[in-house]
């Protein structure tokens, strides 16, 4: 039997962000880990009212990636930070190469 539920309305123009507590809860980590990630320059939360940290979804993904790398590949935070920087750079270069390939070389190389 299939039950139908009421419609949910989601609005992309409302920016989604997470508080420190939410982030810790979702990732099952303590706030000390978040403090370490900030100290390693991996995430940069904004400070909002009453000095509360706010994390956007890009930072949230970075936290999850670091935790996966740490768990699966035994990488420490310094190594994970390096991996993230290199991954960002690779992505940038790939995007640039794809642009050149399409609009300058036009598949001729």
């Amino acid at each position, binding site marked *: *039997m*299939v*039950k*139908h*539920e*009421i*419609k*949910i*309305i*989601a*609005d*992309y*123009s409302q920016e*989604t962000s*997470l508080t420190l507590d939410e982030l810790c*809860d*979702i990732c*099952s980590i303590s706030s000390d880990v978040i403090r370490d990630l900030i100290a390693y320059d991996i995430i940069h939360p904004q400070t909002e009212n009453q000095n509360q940290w706010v994390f956007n*979804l*890009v930072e949230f*993904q970075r936290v999850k*990636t670091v935790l*996966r*790398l740490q768990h*699966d*590949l*035994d990488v420490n935070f310094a190594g994970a930070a390096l*991996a993230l920087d290199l*991954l960002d750079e690779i992505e940038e270069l790939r*995007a*640039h190469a*794809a*642009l050149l390939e*399409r*609009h*300058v070389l*036009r598949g001729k190389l």
Partner: protein
Amino acid sequence: MEYKDYYAVLDVSRSASQDDIKRAYRRLARKYHPDVSKEPQAEEKFKNLQEAYEVLKDPEKRTAYDQLGSNWKQGQEFKTPPGWDGNVRFHTAQGNSAFTENDMGGFSDFFANLFGHSQTRSHREDFGRFRQRGNDDRAKINISLEDAFRGTTKTLQLQIPEMDPSGQIHQVVRTIKVNIPPGTIQGQQMRLANQGGQGIGGAPAGDLYLEIEIQPHPLFSLKGRDIYLTLPVTPWEAALGADIKIPTLAGRVGLKLVPGSIAGQKLRLKGRGLPGKLEPGDQYAILQIETPLAKTDEQRQLYEKMAQMMPFNPRKDWL
């Protein structure tokens, strides 16, 4: 269920030492880790690796697995042998078991049957205090570049399994209407709290993450909020200048090509990219000069005349 050849997955022989197995796992884990790998089906391959390593790194599990014999082939139809005691061993080791219910969720039926997945769960539920937050779910929203520029509304229907209090699983169809404002960019995410998988033992549901996927466009490429377009021109347009109507997401706009334009030149149409909160992106037209083939005698004579009248050596820098 299908037999899994864990040695083949890790690319080691059946006689490999524990060190060899660890080394092989580490090498392949780096290669197929979904966060770093561009290999096709990296996620699937990494899951298989983890499962194979989970068994072969543990001498007890490895011995039990080896007892199945070496005549099995990967993918062969397999039934747990009578009197198989993998479950019992796993039960006693549960107190300090290294993996969680969540990790095991991704492992195959083959693994679960040999090393006791379902047994573990019912064992835990007997105690009645097992609580786990629901899984986070993800869904992609495919939109066109035009939609990203103008904004749009999309309706998603997600089919979600839900357990009622008596333990029965029902399929629930959840309809989500998503408002996508102008200027939404590739990969942009949104979190719908508690709309993910159901929690276990009264724990909260997971979250649902929506991710925007902008489809490739036949003319334009997208980089952040900037749009790129190839602008093919004739040699005489490049040499003499021209007025060209350029397609943009908001319709055609006029662009003045100055005399003496060269191939590869990037011409900017300010503010013609995707709208942004602070500033819109730009559009870039990348100039390409197309040279027509000389097909008739007259056309050939024209090129010959150019060769005589225009002293031009593009290889003058060669020594």
